[in-house]
């Protein structure tokens, strides 16, 4: 199972790539390409949105929040979660892993805003796999760390894939051959990755565990 999260959508257009292109359309187009390639390779694919405006499941008309997207991804128990973005800045592909420090294992009560901490070692391995694949394909790649919501709340090996133009022209980001090359590289890397993924160790509950109510602004909130 692979989760694809084409970022933005609906009234949230994301960044303005060029006069005629906005980020939400590029991320969705890349997600469709990836879904086709991954399905052809035997993966099940879950997309957090497959239309312009994302909607919350079982709540027709309600706008989807970043936490809703994380909820969809976490319920899928995926081998990899890819948050797709696009930018007019730079060239090639930018790959980001969460900036959280790795924890020793998954705690009994998973903190919502730092749930990814237990999965950092796996995300790091996935990043290595992707970096090697992009190196082989000859596509420009910048790998770094960043805190991009909702990646810190994901309980799966997770990366942010930010697609930049292939050259100086910002509209080259829409080039179908370029997008296909990027999608094929990612799909190829995930094919290798599916045999390596390991869930983190689950830590047992402390004897005197006390849980305090969580809020979205609370860094110690519990996973819903």
């Amino acid at each position, binding site marked *: 199972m692979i989760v694809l999260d084409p970022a933005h959508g609906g009234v949230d257009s994301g960044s303005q790539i060029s006069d005629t292109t906005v980020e939400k359309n590029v991320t969705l187009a890349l997600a469709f390409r990836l879904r086709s390639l991954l399905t052809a390779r035997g993966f099940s694919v879950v997309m957090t949105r497959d239309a312009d405006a994302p909607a919350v499941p079982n709540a027709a008309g309600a706008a989807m929040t*970043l936490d809703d997207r994380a909820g969809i991804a976490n319920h899928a128990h995926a081998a990899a979660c890819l948050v797709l973005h696009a930018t007019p*800045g730079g060239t090639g592909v930018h790959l980001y892993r969460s900036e959280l420090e790795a924890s020793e294992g998954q705690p009994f009560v998973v903190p919502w805003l730092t749930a990814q901490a237990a999965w950092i070692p796996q995300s790091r391995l996935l990043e290595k796999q992707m970096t090697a694949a992009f190196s082989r394909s000859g596509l420009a790649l910048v790998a770094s760390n960043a805190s991009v919501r909702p990646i810190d709340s994901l309980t799966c090996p997770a990366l942010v894939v930010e697609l930049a133009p292939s050259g100086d022209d910002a509209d080259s980001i829409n080039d179908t051959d370029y997008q296909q090359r990027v999608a094929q590289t990612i799909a190829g890397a995930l094919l290798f990755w599916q045999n390596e993924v390991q869930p983190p160790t689950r830590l047992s509950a402390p004897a005197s565990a006390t849980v305090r109510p969580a809020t979205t602004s609370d860094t110690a909130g519990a996973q819903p």
Partner: protein
Amino acid sequence: MIQRHQRIVFWCLVVCIIGMGVLLAVGRQRGRQRIAALADDETTPLDAPTAMAETVTLDLANDADGSIAPASRQIALPQDPNARARALIDHLIAEYALPGSAHALPPGSAVAEVFLLPLPLVGYTTDSTSSATKDGGFRPTVPVAQDDPDPVQPKQLGGELAVIDLHSTFVNQHPSGVEVESLTLRSILGTLHANLPQIEQVRFLVDGQARETLAGHADLLRTYPAADTTSSAGTANERQSN
């Protein structure tokens, strides 16, 4: 021959003129005293830097390669740590607003206020119960255990949390994108760490309110560790983790 009613009007006008003159003099004196009191007040938002220019390190971002590199500048800074942190960030953003900047940001003031709070961050409430009165009537609302893994614990004695309240005008005009937004935050974190080492953690607000992202990408809800964010430090950390 001047008539009686004209004499009365004349002397009334003379009295009014003298009275207005006295009122003007008194009002002017009060205004001077008020300004003098404000100048002496320690709660003035941002002191004019009266000290000599000193060498500070600004961690400057570069959009072309996604790097952050330290640069030295001679800047006069106020002595108050809160005002100092605010002035540092304002100077940093002013650098990015210069023509030809490698990380172009809109000009204008970015920071409304910076608050430095001592760690561990514990809320206190007044309590008149017998157990609380021995601590002066104050009781922590969030108990802090020695082995508490909560990130609000300081790493060193005297560690502080910096709460940076950004102007919405700056945030709304900030370029959108994972890289450009992350570089702005890392640049601020690195600059604070280099010049105010007592700052261990940083949180961001926008117009006094929590906000999900800077411009649609970088997370503003989490607490960031203030650390060396230069590219050389990042490479060293990667080597260590591998």
